[in-house]
């Protein structure tokens, strides 16, 4: 029997032009997450920010968004991880239309804000994980300042808190074998950006909005 590698798998995805509603439905079936009701998603451009504990996080939010919102939503992910192999690059760029940003060697030339702002200006919504990396212990860690920079630069963009539960039990950090539990996802009311608020206060408020959805 021929060994089926990841490259075959994604090659198949790209060649067959697998349709996105089907993939979204499959992800929802496997993770058990229900679709987000359309009325919880702002009509215009939005930044969906969530806690981060598993590779499945961005897939799950992407799959749970209403189809019309999903069509112009782009996950933001670390270039160092998603450009490591041809397979990952193909998944991230071709299928999910991810915004890949520099996390390790940030210079003026590779400023991670630029591609994100460009995406917002082009009318795309973003899916971001302000903790910066997957939580190793299931707790929500302090938000990095990226979310604040984005909000200050584009104060009209709606900031939607999302809480993801049990995804790290399905596929924990450092494991490749998933366990088929039922994940859940909660969406909160959009935050308003207040220019007078200090950066740290804003970040704490944003983190609190995600944490509040966990109860």
């Amino acid at each position, binding site marked *: 029997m021929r060994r089926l590698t990841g490259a075959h798998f994604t090659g198949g995805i790209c060649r067959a032009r697998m349709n996105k509603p089907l993939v979204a439905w499959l992800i929802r079936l496997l993770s*058990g997450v*229900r679709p987000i009701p359309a009325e919880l998603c702002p009509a215009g451009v939005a930044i969906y920010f969530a806690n981060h504990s598993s590779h499945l996080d961005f897939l799950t939010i992407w799959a749970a968004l209403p189809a019309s919102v999903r069509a112009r939503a782009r996950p933001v992910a670390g270039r160092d991880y998603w450009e490591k192999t041809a397979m990952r690059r193909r998944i991230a760029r071709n299928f999910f239309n991810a915004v890949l940003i520099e996390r390790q060697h940030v210079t003026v030339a590779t400023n991670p804000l630029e591609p994100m702002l460009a995406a917002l200006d082009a009318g795309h919504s973003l899916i971001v994980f302000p903790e910066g990396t997957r939580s190793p212990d*299931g707790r929500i860690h302090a938000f990095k300042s990226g979310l604040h920079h984005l909000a200050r630069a584009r104060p009209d963009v709606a900031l939607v808190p999302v809480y993801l539960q*049990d995804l*790290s*039990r399905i596929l*924990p950090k450092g*494991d490749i*074998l998933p*366990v*088929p*539990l*039922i994940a859940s996802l909660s969406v909160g009311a959009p935050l308003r950006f207040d220019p007078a608020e200090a950066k740290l206060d804003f970040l704490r408020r944003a983190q609190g909005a995600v944490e509040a959805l966990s109860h």
Partner: protein
Amino acid sequence: MQLDRELLWMICGIVALLALSSAITFLLKRRSGGGENKVIANLDARVKAWWVMVAVFAIAIATGGIGSVILFGLVSFFALREFITLTPTRAADHRTLFWVFFIVTPLQYYLVATHWYGLFAILIPVYAFILVPTRSAIAGDSAQFLERTAKIQWALMVCVYCVSHVPALLMLEIPGYEGQNGKLLLFFVLVVQISDVLQYVWGKLLGRHKIAPDISPNKTVEGFVGGVLSATGIGTALWWATPFNPWQAALLSLTVTLMGFFGGLVMSAIKRDRGVKDYGSMIEGHGGVMDRIDSICFAAPVFFHLVRYYFT
């Protein structure tokens, strides 16, 4: 497979019963007018889900043995998924759970499909009992160790071991009843489930005295007595489809309805402990898969062994 006239009669009876329920629900909806009545809306959803469940079950039985094994294998898998999701486990249990879902559960149903009774009866109580704590111990996290191990073992016993005794009815060799075990399976599921439905109906009509208000607020003495007696009556009236005489059918029906009640009570206690109302949301109106099969869990192994002891 030769078309079994008795099996056909049973299925026709169930369809007629469902049609009657749909008609009653329709009349209730009309009488309540445009106003939103929660109980009637839930009843409507429940009856609709019953049509789907009966259709799936009838197809599984019609395909003979393998269809039932696959159906109950999937039921176990989804019930286990709901149960483990509700049960806190730690990161060190991840690989244990992988074994539980993808090795132990399919293996148990493989043993049912191949009629390997000897290993079927001990796979989970003996070998999984050893595997689960060993794999978690190798992962090296001792926090709440006994608690975690016990919860995973319990999930396996309830969702997989107990439920697998339903299709295992097909492996019993009852003299004079060869090739007809599909009817025995249908008889068992019908009596247990109709007991649930009738306890609900009697409870809604006459229910006054709650049996265990802190555990299952909907269970009443009136519902329990009415449901168990009328389901036993229906089971007795179906003796012609089973290898039993009417008295045996009555005693076995009474036993499985009582076990079904115990199962429902215990699964409710687990839900209350975890602070949820339902195990899941897979079946519209009913909750999760586990909410629908809670009564089957305790009744199946008892029914299986009673029939195996006295009739084979």
